[in-house]
């Protein structure tokens, strides 16, 4: 018995870009997404009715490759965009822009008030606002990278922005939030020996993960005012295109699913599994040109400090870097083979724990983690929470959508909260972004 997951096409986001789209970033709280296009624009679509709300133009001179929404913003949305023109743009929009009662919010930003009289009353009429170019205010251009910017990511607090480029560097910027759109360069890391394809912050800590053309994943933390590499994960045999973090303590997700364990045993298993996980922290999932999707786990701090390897893994003598900051990451799992061509994106649902991947073969694959049940073994070792071998899980391929965008390569996939009329509560949708400019929304049901 192996319950499958059904992927069903819900809607396209319309009208689409006429050129390649690279990535679609769901807003952290509002039912909107931002799609990055080779036509140098960013399209903002509604997940409520799947139509275009606005198009951000004029900021970038080449393809827009990446975008990320700043978290914890109230009343205003802030979007960071990265382009092949080597710059990062910061854009701002009042959330109640276009609403009659929103005028007061715009004081001090007179440019936004020009068209409020003709704008839609509730913000639902896209047509009226489409032509209004001042809806999105260009705030600042972050200049520093030497070549194409590939990825941008805001830290959990929203205070730090990480950017990376073909110039092999990662920049960390601090948003000074001084009302003047000033950003300060906090660090420039140049340890990668190839293009840095993706950066992604830990879900709660100030720890950055990066993926590169040099086939490695690296982790970075601040130590005594200095940002430095704390781990270099080798294992992929090709460019690492994308990575994502596991969620932390989601209310709606109780960990891996088990079909064959009795209900009474489940809670004990969960407890044990959770305490193990708590020691390691959230895992990382990555995808690569080598056609694989892999999960990586940090060695629990306790056992790691006993090991003699803490400085050996990074090659940096312990005199320079205190051993306490080094982390040892190991391969937790190679997910079941599902792709015949490079895998460009992977997304780990913070809500359900499902992992989705997609790539050049035009396929969307879904994976689920399950306990491997070895009955009584758990009892004898129940107290030994530091052991990593007591409970094991396996990843199962539970859904495949071939030709998700017809004949086109799919560049990105992301989970977002469902917001259309047919949705019920905490449901999620998948948003996929393809070479022909199309963006599709999918429901995922058991």
């Amino acid at each position, binding site marked *: 018995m192996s319950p499958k997951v059904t992927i069903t096409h819900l809607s396209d986001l319309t009208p689409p870009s006429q050129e390649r789209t690279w990535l679609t970033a769901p807003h952290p709280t509002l039912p909107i997404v931002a799609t990055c296009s080779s036509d140098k624009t960013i399209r903002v679509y509604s997940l409520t009715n799947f139509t275009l709300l606005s198009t951000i133009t004029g900021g970038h001179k080449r393809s827009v490759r990446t975008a990320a929404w700043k978290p914890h913003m109230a009343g205003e949305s802030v979007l960071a965009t990265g382009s092949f023109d080597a710059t990062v743009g910061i854009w701002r929009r009042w959330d109640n822009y276009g609403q009659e009662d929103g005028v007061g919010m715009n004081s001090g930003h007179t440019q936004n008030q020009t068209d409020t009289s003709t704008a839609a009353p509730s913000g639902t009429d896209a047509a009226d606002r489409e032509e209004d170019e001042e809806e999105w205010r260009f705030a600042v251009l972050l200049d520093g990278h030497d070549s194409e910017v590939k990825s941008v990511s805001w830290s959990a607090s929203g205070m730090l922005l990480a950017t990376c480029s073909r110039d092999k560097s990662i920049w960390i910027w601090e948003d000074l939030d001084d009302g003047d759109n000033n950003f300060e360069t906090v660090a420039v890391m140049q340890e990668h020996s190839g293009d840095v394809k993706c950066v992604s912050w830990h879900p709660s800590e100030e720890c950055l993960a990066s993926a590169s053309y040099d086939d490695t994943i690296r982790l970075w933390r601040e130590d005594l005012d200095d940002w430095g590499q704390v781990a270099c994960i080798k294992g992929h045999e090709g460019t690492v295109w994308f990575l994502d973090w596991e969620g932390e303590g989601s209310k709606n997700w109780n960990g891996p699913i088990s079909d064959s364990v009795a209900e009474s045993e489940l809670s004990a298993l969960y407890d044990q599994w959770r305490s193990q996980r708590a020691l390691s922290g959230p895992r990382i999932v990555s995808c690569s040109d080598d056609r694989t999707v892999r999960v990586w786990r940090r060695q629990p701090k306790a056992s790691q400090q006993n090991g003699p390897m803490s400085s050996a893994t990074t090659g940096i003598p312990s005199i320079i870097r205190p051993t306490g900051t080094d982390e040892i990451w190991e391969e937790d799992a190679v997910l079941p083979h599902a792709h015949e061509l490079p895998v460009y994106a992977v997304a780990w649902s913070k809500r359900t724990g499902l992992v989705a991947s997609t790539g050049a073969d035009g396929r969307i694959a879904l994976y689920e983690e399950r306990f491997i049940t070895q009955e009584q073994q758990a009892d004898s070792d129940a107290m030994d929470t530091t052991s990593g071998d007591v409970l094991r899980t396996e990843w199962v391929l539970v859904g495949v959508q071939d030709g998700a965008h017809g*004949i086109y390569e799919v560049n990105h996939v992301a989970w977002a909260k469902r917001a259309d009329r047919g949705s019920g509560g905490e449901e999620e949708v998948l948003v996929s972004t393809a070479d022909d400019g199309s963006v599709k929304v999918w429901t995922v049901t058991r």
Partner: protein
Amino acid sequence: MAEIQNSNPTIINAADLPTRLRPTATRKSEYGGIFTSALPLAPVDFESALSSDSEDDNLMEEPIDEQEIYDLISSISDPEHPISLGELAVVSLPDIAIKPTLPDVLDSPLQTVTVLITPTITHCSLATVIGLGVRVRLEQSLPSRFRMDVRIKEGTHSTGDEVNKQLADKERVAAALENGALMGVIAKMMETCH
């Protein structure tokens, strides 16, 4: 390109190059002519079934074979000689292959075109530019259901793996297409294409 890297390349007589009009022994598949050729792996049914998905494909697409790929890329000029890649034997018909991308997926229209490039000298720094030219030519000429696999033939170049990794990197190729200087060089190479 101030200094010519290979000033005396071997050139094949144009009359000896494989062509559709005068089939030669080097051809892999024997088809009567351009209108009767059909790929066994690509029944015409796919093309019509898929036409609604792609504006590139909505005209009834002729099946594409290795000779057609060769014709597309052999007329590209070498960046440092006014001689075609076919005449220099940088590309050759036996080093072109078309295979289904997803053999396990019934009805998948995706096909992978593999082109192996033989640089004129093993340290030719222009190998990347030639490879990029071939890839761009194919991307611009073939329907979107084709996946390009352009590589340096094994053992023919000192940094083949490095070049291959660049040529296979979609993001780098996309960025190169937006690079005016590089595209100028490639446009010049393609002036001899029809």
